[in-house]
């Protein structure tokens, strides 16, 4: 392996191992919900594992994978050595120490607070400290990304930065704006409180700060997936990117719309006035817009590929696409499920309508389509694409890799649809079992929880296939000459840098929108007479 490739490769493997551990926990949870009696099944184990699954999947797998992809983009799209490699490695190790700290607290049963860690549930300080270190590590990554972008610009005056870097830079900006919220929440409110330095904490203020972070977090997951859809997929499909400039527009729209929307997660919170929730609802609904553009542009790019291969007629191009390529299949299938997830998201955000689904199983059904498929399945597909190239080895167990995205698609359909339905029927999310003393309403959920458990089994098989392919490739793949990573050409040549490449301007617009959405409600909140809450550890 090229020495410089060790940086992304190390990040990738932290992501892959976190994914493996989290997937094993998910299996137990899905079976538990169906009330299947397994050895060692207990409420303590269940909630502990939900916490570990959430933290490892949502925070560790995603963050490390995205950092890896960022370095890949520097190396192969900007075609330069990573400037600031020492800082990048420091970020990696700080993040790893953070993961070990947080995971130890969780596995020891000292931090069963779920990945949302709402106070006044109180975790061991090591949990908060660990999460802080992961985020500090990611900030070093963000700094390295920005430094490399600047170096590239200096060396390429008058050229527009490659779209892949444009998208990754948008990811970095969204992340930097978002993490301010969680940093304040953890460093000012939770860490001192868990250490016993402060006596009480205001749970609603903590929730406001968490969701200030928590919604743009989902775009931090999604944007790198979009980068892969726009800049790698058309190439693998055998065609060209339908529109480079619309890709840039999409990334800019995410910079400005990702953050001023957090109250739609708090639609049912007391202490937050309805008017501000309504404003956040309207802003949230506009986030559908860049994703709808993406749906068109990426699908059109696939059609271009099919037609370049000689397809005629209305739908013949679909048949000419490389459905046997695991990267292509992973992305195409994740796009289909993301379409369903996107409409579900519009329901969640729609103000009064949220009451029908809030904290029900619908929500877990929803985000397993978005982060659990649009992001995670795309990342798995990307891993098939990147690991052989970085490791200089052939993809091993190719048949498993071919089948794996389809299994994920099937398992997720079973899991997600059954959870959407039980959610509409009123089943809460995050429960060890849903029996409620044999209440008639709860009995009605049971057939569907079994279907969801079957989905969980299929998903676990898919995750196991992925891990086998990764381990097989890294350890036993046939060595080969390094193969370059090839990016999609746009249908029309990229022009000079324009308005959509002026990141400083868009950061300014984003900050203004954040101030409009949050400054007044937070100010009013802080002025109100409030009573903090002491800590509780009911686990």
């Amino acid at each position, binding site marked *: 392996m090229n020495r410089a490739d060790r940086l992304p490769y190390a990040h990738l493997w932290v992501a892959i191992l976190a994914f493996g551990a989290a997937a094993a926990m998910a299996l137990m949870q899905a079976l538990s919900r169906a009330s299947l009696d397994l050895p060692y099944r207990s*409420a*303590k184990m269940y*909630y502990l594992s*939900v916490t570990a699954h959430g933290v490892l999947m949502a925070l560790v797998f995603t963050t490390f994978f995205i950092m890896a992809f960022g370095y890949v983009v520097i190396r192969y799209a900007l075609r330069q050595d990573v400037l600031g490699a020492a800082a990048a490695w420091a970020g990696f190790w700080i993040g790893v120490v953070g993961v070990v700290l947080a995971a130890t607290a969780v596995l020891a049963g000292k931090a069963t607070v779920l990945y949302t860690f*709402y106070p*006044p*549930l109180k975790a061991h300080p090591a949990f908060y400290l660990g999460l802080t270190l992961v985020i500090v590590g990611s900030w070093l990554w963000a700094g390295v990304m920005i430094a490399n972008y600047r170096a590239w610009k200096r060396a390429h005056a008058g050229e527009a930065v490659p779209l892949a870097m444009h998208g990754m830079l948008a990811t970095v900006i969204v992340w930097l704006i978002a993490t301010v919220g969680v940093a304040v929440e953890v460093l000012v409110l939770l860490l001192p409180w868990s250490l016993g330095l402060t006596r009480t904490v205001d*749970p*609603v203020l903590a929730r406001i700060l968490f969701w200030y972070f928590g919604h743009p977090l989902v775009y931090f997951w999604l944007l790198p997936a979009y980068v892969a859809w726009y800049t790698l997929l058309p190439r693998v499909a055998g065609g060209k990117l*339908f*529109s480079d400039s*619309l890709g840039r*527009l999409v990334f800019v729209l995410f910079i400005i719309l990702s953050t001023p929307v957090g109250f739609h997660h708090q*639609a*049912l*919170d*007391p*202490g*937050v006035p309805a008017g501000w*929730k*309504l404003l956040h609802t*309207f802003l949230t*609904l506009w986030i*559908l*817009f860049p994703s*709808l*553009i993406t749906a*068109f542009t990426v699908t*059109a790019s696939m059609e271009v590929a099919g037609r370049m291969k000689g397809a005629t007629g209305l739908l013949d191009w679909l048949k000419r696409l490389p459905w046997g390529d695991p990267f292509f299949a992973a992305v195409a299938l994740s796009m289909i499920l993301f379409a369903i997830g996107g409409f579900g998201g519009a329901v969640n955000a*729609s*103000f*009064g309508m*949220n*009451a*029908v689904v*809030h*904290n029900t199983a619908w929500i877990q059904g929803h985000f397993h389509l978005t982060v659990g498929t649009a992001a995670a399945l795309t990342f798995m597909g990307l891993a098939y694409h990147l690991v052989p190239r970085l490791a200089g080895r052939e993809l091993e167990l190719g048949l498993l890799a071919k089948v794996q995205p389809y299994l994920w698609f099937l398992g997720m359909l079973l899991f997600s649809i059954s959870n959407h339905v039980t959610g509409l*029927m*009123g089943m*809460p*999310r*995050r*429960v*060890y*079992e*849903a*029996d*409620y003393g044999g*209440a008639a*309403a*709860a009995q009605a959920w049971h057939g569907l929880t079994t279907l969801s458990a079957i989905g969980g089994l299929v998903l676990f098989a898919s995750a196991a296939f992925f891990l086998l392919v990764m381990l097989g490739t890294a350890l036993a793949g046939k060595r080969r000459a390094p193969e370059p990573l090839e990016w999609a050409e746009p249908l*029309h040549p990229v022009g000079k840098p324009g308005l959509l490449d002026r990141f400083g301007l868009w950061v300014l617009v984003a900050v203004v929108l954040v101030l409009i959405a949050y400054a007044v409600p937070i100010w009013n909140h802080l002025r*109100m*007479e*409030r*009573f903090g*809450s002491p800590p*509780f550890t*009911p*686990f």
Partner: protein
Amino acid sequence: MNVPLYEKIWMWAAGGMIVAFILMVFAGVAFSALEPPSHVETIDPAQVWTDARFANRGVTQSPTGATVIAVAMMFAFNPAEIHVPAGKPVTFRLTSADVTHGFQIVGTNANTMVIPGYISQFTTTFSTPGEYLIVCNEYCGLGHHQMYATLIVEEASS
């Protein structure tokens, strides 16, 4: 920016759909008072049991409707059985004695967070008499799944 015609049409359609979604939310607010519970009132969580607003838990009926005062705690609702009349507005006032809980009446859109230090309040009308399951839908500790109560909607005595 040069946008191809078909994508232009698609973008207008997408924008139109989002405007329709926004109008739908507005229509819900304007015509059905379809607002999420957003009451702003604080309370000292250490004094919940003695605070005058929650000292008498249960249902107060009046000719025009009913008021329910209830406390959520690990891992039960107090009171555990709530009787309300059908067809009349019922106002729920809830708070938590410990961690954050949820209060969701299964089979209806009555659903709110219950957060320590704050009072949740919403008003709704139950049209169908019968027995309803109330569940806590926010993780609150190892007994979370055992936290439930019963709502009995009674035929209004005319």
